[in-house]
């Protein structure tokens, strides 16, 4: 059974009687352990697709099955629960809590999980070590550089040990050096078995993935494996 199974997915937004078709047609499966880039220009429907995959939104029609659960059958609270323990989000603008320590930021998803409080400290510490920020654990989020902020966001996404990491333009707000570090962390996580989906409009960023799903005008028009995959070594900068 694939981790993600998407069939004839459609999303129509209604705004004051004007209907906008944000997503017209998408059908694909993603297996456990894959590293997929959803690529396309703005307006191509890739954000909508990401919202649906991330249980932030429900499709208008079609089917989205994640780990055997059909998203349309879930209540709001069940969607929240799925976001909490099955998916880790990484956003373009980091979205850390301001004036709050790295430790507390990473801990955030645990507050809404069933993980016993006794395990919180160990889990947060492990996640912070995984992104190499153990020397910054007590820093406040606003004392960090952009790249460090995004690493905190990845640690936060990891803390609940989700089945999928969903990253929306994770290098979009970063310089090429920091961007390189982020892509390396994501590739390392993938090498250790994490399923990762990144959404990007940059071809170079997308080519760090193993597979690219190309979106255009609300449709998934191409789905192919990356032949000359870019792999990051320590200190390498991202080609933008």
């Amino acid at each position, binding site marked *: 059974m694939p981790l993600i199974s998407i069939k004839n997915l459609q999303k129509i937004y209604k705004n004051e009687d004007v209907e906008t078709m944000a997503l017209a047609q998408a059908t694909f499966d993603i297996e456990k352990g894959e590293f997929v880039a959803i690529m396309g220009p703005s307006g191509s429907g890739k954000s909508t697709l990401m*919202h649906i995959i*991330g249980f*932030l*939104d429900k499709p208008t029609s079609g089917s989205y099955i994640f780990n055997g659960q059909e998203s349309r059958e879930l209540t*709001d*609270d069940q969607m*929240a*629960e799925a*976001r*909490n*323990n099955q998916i880790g*989000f990484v*956003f373009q603008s980091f*979205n850390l*809590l301001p*004036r*709050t320590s790295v430790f507390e930021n990473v801990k*955030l*998803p645990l*507050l*809404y*999980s069933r993980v016993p409080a006794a395990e919180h400290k160990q889990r947060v510490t492990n996640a912070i070590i995984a992104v190499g920020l153990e020397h910054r654990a007590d820093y406040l989020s606003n004392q960090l550089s952009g790249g460090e902020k995004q690493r905190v966001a990845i640690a*936060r996404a990891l803390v*609940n040990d989700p089945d999928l990491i969903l990253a929306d333009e994770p290098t979009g707000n970063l310089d090429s050096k920091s961007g390189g570090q982020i892509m390396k962390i994501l590739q390392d996580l993938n090498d250790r078995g994490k399923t990762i989906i990144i959404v990007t409009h940059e071809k170079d960023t997308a080519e760090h993935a193993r597979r690219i799903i190309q979106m255009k005008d609300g449709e998934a028009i191409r789905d192919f494996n990356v032949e000359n995959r870019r792999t990051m070594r320590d200190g390498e900068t991202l080609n933008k």
Partner: protein
Amino acid sequence: MIIATIKLSLNNLRKQKMRSFLTMLGIIIGITAVILITSVIAGAESLITNQFSSLGPTLVGVLPGASDDDGPPAAVMGIVITTLTDDDTAAIAKLPHIIAASSYVSAIEAINFESQKTTATVYGVSPDFPAISDTKITNGNFFTDDDKNGMSNVAVIGSQVREELFGETDALNQDIKIKQEKFHIIGILAEQGTVGFVNMDNTVMIPISTAQKKLLGIDHVGFVRARVDDEANIPGAVEEIKYLLRDRHNIRTEAEDDFSVRAVQDALTALGTITRALQFFLIAIVSISLLVGGIGIMNIMLAAVTERIKEIGLRKAVGAQRNHIVNQFLIETIIISFTGAIIGIIIGIALAYLTSIIVNQLGYQWDFVITLFSILLSCFFAFLIGLLFGLYPARKAARLDPIEALRYE
């Protein structure tokens, strides 16, 4: 989860100390008022009760002019009624359950001794006065029926008057001057403090007849006080006095009464009713200020929701369910109003304590009373306000769509 939320709320409040304080201000003022008002009313009640009780529970007063049992006497309206006389007092004193009765007239006068000068309340009273007012004479004697009948110029002075005019020297048998009349001091009153709101230590007592004729030029008396032999006989005695005075004043029906008779006990009962009514009235007003305070909190919380839309979006994205968000905001408002209440309680107690110290300094007995009821009431109000005015902003926050909230700039 709850503990984490409380910690989070405390952190949020600490990060914006000034704003948190301003948000609480309405609650602080309201709760301070609740504590202060209940304490001041209890203190005032104790003060008035003490003043009346010091007169003794068996005291009955006769005032010139009609009044119904609860309304103010005629003198309050500035009407002078001249029908009550010292002969009435003598007749009252002869009634079966009456131990003693005294007429009273009074005036504030300058008192002179050689070059020393002071101002005191001069009372013209009957020789029975010590029995009525439970006054002791430390030095010398009180004047007698002979002094009254002979309109003697004799005076018994209060301890404060003695102190101010004579200092350390002996006052007995000295002559003082009131309105060009010379008075021979025959006694000194024991220190007594205030009784019935009169500072007994700053008075000069002279025979009623002397005061009426030589100082004031009147025939009537200001009021009469009589002592009843037993508390159980008070209602009967009151009726007998009324009957007697109607007979003496040729009055046929109650409606034509030109006097009123009051017992101290009735005054205490009336007082209790008044203070309770006052308390409820003031607390009703305070409730309005608390309501305003609550609306203030709601206003700030609504602003906080807008300010933290992105944060709420993030929390929802990483798995916060609706009730998590509702709890977070609700707990925050309850903490705000509760902290406000605690500050208000502390300030209220401090102000009430200050009031009691000041009033006691002024020579009145004022009890410092903080009731558990007022504190529980304050906490209850605070909790209710937090819950009531926090619910709307909290629900508004919880209903936000995570996608839109995350995009919000």
